[in-house]
């Protein structure tokens, strides 16, 4: 398949350019009006920001990008038959966590059909995400993915304005009753449960530590599943959970992990993009780490035991099939171990005991078949 992927670090790169221009303008005797001019271009998201694009000529800013239309006239040579997918996501495309999971999944969709992908990542500011979503819709993408539960409110406003464009929103289980919105979510508790059972077997102190972001969505499901799995494996185990109330504060995640270690934890896990702060502690202390969302082996080959990997392509293929059939939305799609949307990936370099791995694989099979459940609602 010949696929095209463009990545826009719109907000940040736009900000950088905008700020540079504004600073120069302000410094060159410009008065407040100059600054206002800059402020009037929130399409920070839409500034000419093609630099990070690895597939487009990086040194040749795409002059055809109209400020308010993110993918304006990209018109590649033969896009007529390509299915056009746009992704708007809160963190970096290669964060080894939430955003990377959707990017990797869309790329896997591209292995079976011709697609054109445009990504706006790093939009942790919801207003920037809203601008990007609207821009993609205006440009007529076949599927616009709002990858972040925080994007629900703007999507609720934008989607009705573009009834012919299909939107997908996750992680969420609500389509707002809008016919061109699909929702997707994940039973992250299932992989969390598996990780918990393994963790409880590896822990000598019987104390396990969890670094969470905010107690919502798939993060909460994963953490609850991990706790349930650990307790199911070892009813005497103690699982200390620390939600640091931030998806991005790496330093706080680092200190939270240290606090766990201080309190005796000898197994750690965590979820969301700030866990790179916690994995550093695990690496330093040589403590087993369990990952989720994406494969986190790269964060420490010697400490990462297993990762629960989201294969969103399972739900994306359903959504795309619906679109092909003329249904633009309305469904709620869920990743599970059963449907193959959740895959447990073991890190060979860690050298997990064969017996423990075998019991973990049995747990996976039992969860997939419904023989056991995590008990997490």
């Amino acid at each position, binding site marked *: 398949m010949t696929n095209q992927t463009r990545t826009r670090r719109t907000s*940040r790169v736009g900000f950088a350019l905008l700020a540079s221009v504004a600073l120069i303008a302000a410094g060159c005797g410009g008065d*407040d009006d100059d600054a206002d001019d800059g402020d009037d271009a929130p399409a920070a998201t839409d500034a000419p920001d093609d630099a990070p694009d690895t597939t487009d000529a990086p040194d040749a800013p795409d002059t055809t990008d109209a400020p308010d239309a993110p993918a304006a006239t990209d018109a590649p040579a033969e896009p007529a038959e390509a299915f056009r997918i746009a992704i708007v996501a809160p963190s970096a495309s290669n964060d080894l966590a939430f955003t990377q999971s959707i990017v990797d999944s869309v790329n896997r969709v591209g292995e079976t059909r011709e697609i054109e992908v445009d990504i706006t990542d790093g939009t942790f500011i919801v207003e920037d995400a809203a601008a990007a979503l609207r821009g993609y819709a205006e440009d007529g993408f076949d599927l616009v993915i709002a990858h972040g539960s925080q994007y629900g409110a703007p999507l609720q406003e934008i989607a009705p304005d573009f009834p012919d464009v299909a939107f997908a929103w996750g992680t969420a289980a609500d389509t707002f009753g809008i016919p061109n919105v699909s929702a997707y979510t994940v039973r992250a508790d299932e992989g969390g449960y598996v990780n918990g059972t393994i963790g409880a077997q590896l822990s000598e102190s019987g104390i396990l530590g969890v670094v969470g972001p905010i107690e919502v969505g798939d993060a909460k499901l994963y953490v609850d599943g991990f706790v349930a799995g650990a307790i199911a494996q070892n009813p005497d185990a103690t699982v200390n959970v*620390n939600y640091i*109330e931030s998806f*991005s504060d790496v330093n*706080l995640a680092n*200190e939270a992990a240290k*606090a766990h270690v201080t309190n005796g934890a000898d197994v750690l896990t965590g979820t969301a993009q700030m866990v*790179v702060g916690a994995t550093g502690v695990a690496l330093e202390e040589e403590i087993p780490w369990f990952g989720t969302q994406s494969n986190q082996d790269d964060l420490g080959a010697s400490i990462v035991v297993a990762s629960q990997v989201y294969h969103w392509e399972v739900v994306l293929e359903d959504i795309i099939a619906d679109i092909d059939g003329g249904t633009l939305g309305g469904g709620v799609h869920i990743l599970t171990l059963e449907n193959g949307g959740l895959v447990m990936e073991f890190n060979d370099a860690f050298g997990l005991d064969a017996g423990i791995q075998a019991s973990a694989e049995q747990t996976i099979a039992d969860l997939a078949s419904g023989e056991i459940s995590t008990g997490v609602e």
Partner: protein
Amino acid sequence: MSDFFTVSVLVATLASGIRLATPFLLAALGETIGQRSGVLNLGVEGVMLIGAFAAYYAALETGSATFGILMALAAGAVMGLVYALITVVLHAEQGISGIGIFLFGLGFTDLLFQKQVGTPIPIRGLQPIEIPLLSDIPHIGEIFFQHSLLTYVAFLLVPAVWFMINRTTFGLNIRAVGETPEAADTLGVSVNRTRTATIVIGNTFAGLAGGALALEVGIFQQNLTAGQGFIAVALVYFGAWRAFGVMAGALLFGIVSATVLQWKTLGIVSGAASSLTAMAPALLTIVVLVVVSRRSDAPAALTRPFDRAA
């Protein structure tokens, strides 16, 4: 709650608080110097990000955390020259310029990270240095004398900055141009040169603060500083533009943050209470700021550009 009041947990909490205070302290000390000369820099956050990336990338490429520190210092100094050009030479409005620097730092570091690194790669950051004899003192040693290099540097800079501002000719010039630049100019003090120097020093500190952050956690990620630069600016007001006051504010913020983390880890607070306690450091800072503002000792010429020809 009884779990919290054990010696080992209290010692770990205080040590954690000191670690958490370090980036705030470095950045706030630098900002204090700048503000005492009449220059507000809201771009501390952006400069911290640039310093953090410079330190991380240098350490990643060379394997040397020391080289990372040097690059953080250099990046901060360069940003200081840029900010001095904008505010001192070109007389741009300081508040807006600072926001511009922040946005620039945010975007620029993200761009560089994606282009040069991509996926977060752990580095071997700064390791704790145990001060001989002192680190062996029970409890005290663990709290104060088992930190990484930049933590010691940050706290040693407090008396150094105090001395510079209050006991040197350069410090006298800083205070003069921060209070009445016209009078200082009349007395032969170069206002622009003094402010340029304080801006460069202040931004160098901010770059170092970012470097401390990246090298402490051993990783870089977009928006790594997560608002710490703005808190550092608030701490300058909190500390009433005095080095030791700024240190007190940074320690308070760091220790309260560490305490909240320990409470959550031990399950002392959970659910909604957990979310509320996470706001405690910020709320406490706001409360103290309100109290402190009643006896504001802000430099009289703060944010006021100086134009000799005017």
